[in-house]
C-alpha cells in the first residue's frame, strides 16, 4: 500500500515538508492543531546506558528517518483537554487544580497512555505517545544531546564529577509553574514549547546495553518500568511518577513538570507504523 504515499514522497524530495492540518471536525477535543512530520531525518543518539566492558561510554549515534509520516500536536495537551477525559470517567484526576488553558502537568506515563487510548476511542484515530526517536526528530534543535565526558577507566569519579558539574551548570527553566501555551516559543517545525518547563513522556523504555570490547557485540537489557521523558534534558523516570520534583538527594536533576504531546498515525498504516516504532 505504499503507493498511497506518493504525494508525501514527492514532498520529501524537496527536503522535508510539514503540513499544518485543518482541525479535525469529528470531535472538539481533538481540535488541537497538528503538524505532519514527513521526510525528516535526524542524527539520533540512542537512549539508555551503554557500557563498554565495565565502563560507561556514550551511546552510539544513528540516523533516524521514519518511512511513514505521522502527525504531532503543535502544543502540549492542556488541562482542559485532559479534564474532559477525567469527566468522561476514563482518566485519573490530576492532583492539583489550575487553568484549563495551561499545559496539563502532573501526568504520569500511565496517565498519558490512558488519555491517548481515550482520545483514540473518541476520535476514531490512533493517538499515542511518540517514541524517543520521534520526539527528537520533531524537536529538532530543541533536543539536547546528552553526550558526556567519558573519563578514565582508572577513576570512575572523574566521570561522576564532570557530569555533576555539567548538570550544575545547565541552564534550566527557573519558573516551575506551568506557563501559558506558547511561552517557550516555536521550533523550526512550528511546534510550541518544546524543552520548556514541561517534559513530555515518550513510549521508549530505559535500556542498558553492554558492548563486548573484544567482539563489538551488544547485549541489551530493557526495563519498561522506566520510560523516557524528553525536554531540556533526557530524563528516565518510573512510569507511575506524576511529580518528579523531589529534593536533590540523588545526584542528577529531575524534570520540572511532566506532561504530554501526542502523535497521530495516518489511517491505514497502523500495522507498519507500529512495527517500525516498536524499536
Amino acid at each position, binding site marked *: 500500500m505504499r503507493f498511497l504515499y506518493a504525494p508525501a514522497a514527492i514532498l520529501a524530495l524537496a527536503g522535508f515538508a510539514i503540513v499544518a492540518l485543518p482541525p479535525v471536525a469529528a470531535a472538539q477535543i481533538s481540535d488541537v492543531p497538528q503538524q505532519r512530520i514527513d521526510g525528516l531525518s535526524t542524527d539520533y543518539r540512542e537512549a539508555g546506558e551503554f557500557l563498554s566492558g565495565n565502563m560507561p561510554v556514550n551511546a552510539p549515534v544513528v540516523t533516524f528517518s521514519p518511512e511513514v509520516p505521522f502527525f504531532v500536536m503543535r502544543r502540549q495537551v492542556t488541562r482542559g483537554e485532559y479534564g474532559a477525559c477525567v469527566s468522561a470517567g476514563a482518566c485519573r484526576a490530576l492532583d492539583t*487544580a489550575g487553568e484549563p488553558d495551561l499545559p496539563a502537568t502532573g501526568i504520569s506515563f500511565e496517565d498519558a497512555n490512558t488519555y491517548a487510548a481515550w482520545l483514540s476511542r473518541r476520535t476514531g484515530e490512533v493517538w499515542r505517545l511518540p517514541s524517543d526517536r520521534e520526539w527528537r526528530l520533531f524537536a529538532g534543535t530543541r533536543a539536547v544531546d546528552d553526550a558526556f565526558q567519558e573519563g578514565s577507566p582508572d577513576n*570512575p569519579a572523574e566521570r561522576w564529577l564532570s557530569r*555533576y558539574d555539567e548538570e550544575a551548570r545547565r541552564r534550566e527553566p527557573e519558573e516551575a509553574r506551568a506557563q501559558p501555551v506558547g511561552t517557550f516559543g516555536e521550533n523550526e517545525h512550528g511546534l510550541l514549547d518544546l524543552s520548556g518547563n514541561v517534559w513530555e513522556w515518550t513510549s521508549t523504555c530505559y535500556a542498558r546495553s553492554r558492548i563486548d570490547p573484544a567482539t563489538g557485540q551488544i*547485549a541489551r537489557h530493557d526495563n519498561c518500568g522506566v520510560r523516557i521523558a524528553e525536554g531540556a534534558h533526557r530524563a528516565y523516570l518510573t512510569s507511575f511518577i506524576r511529580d518528579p520534583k523531589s529534593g536533590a538527594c540523588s545526584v542528577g536533576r529531575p524534570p520540572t513538570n511532566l506532561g504530554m504531546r501526542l502523535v497521530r498515525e495516518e489511517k491505514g498504516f497502523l500495522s507498519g507504523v507500529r512495527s517500525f516504532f516498536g524499536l
Partner: protein
Amino acid sequence: MITRRNALLGAASAATAALMVSGPARAAGSATSGLAAASPAGDLPRIKGELVTPPHVMAHDQVAKGGPRIVEFKMVVEEKKVVVDDQGTEFQAMTYNGSMPGPTMVVHEGDYLELTLVNPETNTMPHNIDFHASTGALGGGALTLINPGEQTVLRFKAFRPGVFIYHCAPTGMVPWHVVSGMSGTVMVLPRDGLKDGEGKPLHYDRVYTIGEFDLYIPKDADGNYMTYDSPGESYSDTLDVMRGLIPTHVVFNGKVGALTGESAMPAKVGETVLFIHSCANRDSRPHLIGGHGDWVWETGKFANAPQKDQETWFVRGGSAAAAIYTFRQPGIYAYVNHNLIEAAELGATGHVKVEGDWNDDLMTQVSAPGPIVG
C-alpha cells in the same frame, strides 16, 4: 598594634601582635556594653572577627596563639523574603546577617565574645539573641532585645569548648523567630585545639557549617503555598502549620539545594573536613553517603572524647554537632539527614564534591550490571 591600655599594664602578649587588634577607640566603645568598666575582660586585647556566609566559616587558628582575647563581631538582623525551593515557594525569613543559618563565630576557650547586634529601621520586628555558649540572662536574650532602629552590645565569656547554637528568642514568639531562620553557631575551640580521646591532636583542612531548618509554610485551599508581604502577616497562618509539627520543608542552609550543584561543598582526597551541623529547633541524624564520621562530637562539646567511626549521628534539636572526616575516595558524596524522606522529599540534602585518585583497594566494580549468569 597594641591597645594603649594593654601597653600601660604591660599585658601585651604575642597574641596582641595579631593584625586585627583594634585601636583605643574600640576600648572606649566597650563601655556601652553595660558591664562594669573594671571588668577583667576590658584589659584583654581585642580583635575583630570577620564573619562569612555559611557554609563557609571565618578564618581562624585551630590552636590559639597567645592568651585570651575579646573577639568582636557585628551582626545585622535582616527580615526578607526568600525562595526556599525550586518551585519558587516564597518564605518570609528573619535572619542574622541575611543568611540561614547566621554566620558561624569562632573563638577560643577563655576568650570573650562581644557581639554588636543591629536591628535596622527597615525591619518590622523586635529581635534579640540567646547564645547557648553563654551563661546567664537567658543566654543574653534578656539583655539584647532591640526594636527596629536600635542596636545592642553583649559580651560573654566563652569558657566551655564546643559548638553551640545561638538563636533569636523574643518573649512570646521564640519558636516562630527560630523557624523563620534566626539561628547560627558559635564554635569555642579548646586553646590547644581539638583532640581525640587519647589527647592526640586532630586537625582539619576545611570546615563547613550546615544549619538545618524545619520550615512551616502555609498553603491555600488549592494546596499552593501562600505568599505574604511581611513576617507579621504570615504569623497566624504559620503558627497553625507549626502546631501540626509537620514541616513543609526541611532544608540545609535556608533552601532546597543550597549545598548542591554549583553550591556543592568542594574537597580533595586526603583532606580532612570538619562538618558543623546545627539544629536550632528539631532533631536530625546526619549521614555522609559513601563516607563516615571519623571523629564525631555528637553533642558538640569538645571536652568530651569524640566517638570514632560513626555511620550516622544524632543532632538534638537545640544543639550543634561536629564531625571530622578524611576523604579517601573521589566522587560526589551526599550529606543528608538520614530520615531519607526529609532528605529527598523535604530538602535536607547537601553534596560534597571530592576530587582525587580512585582507590581500587577500597572499592572496585568487579562486574558492571549485566545479565544474570549461572
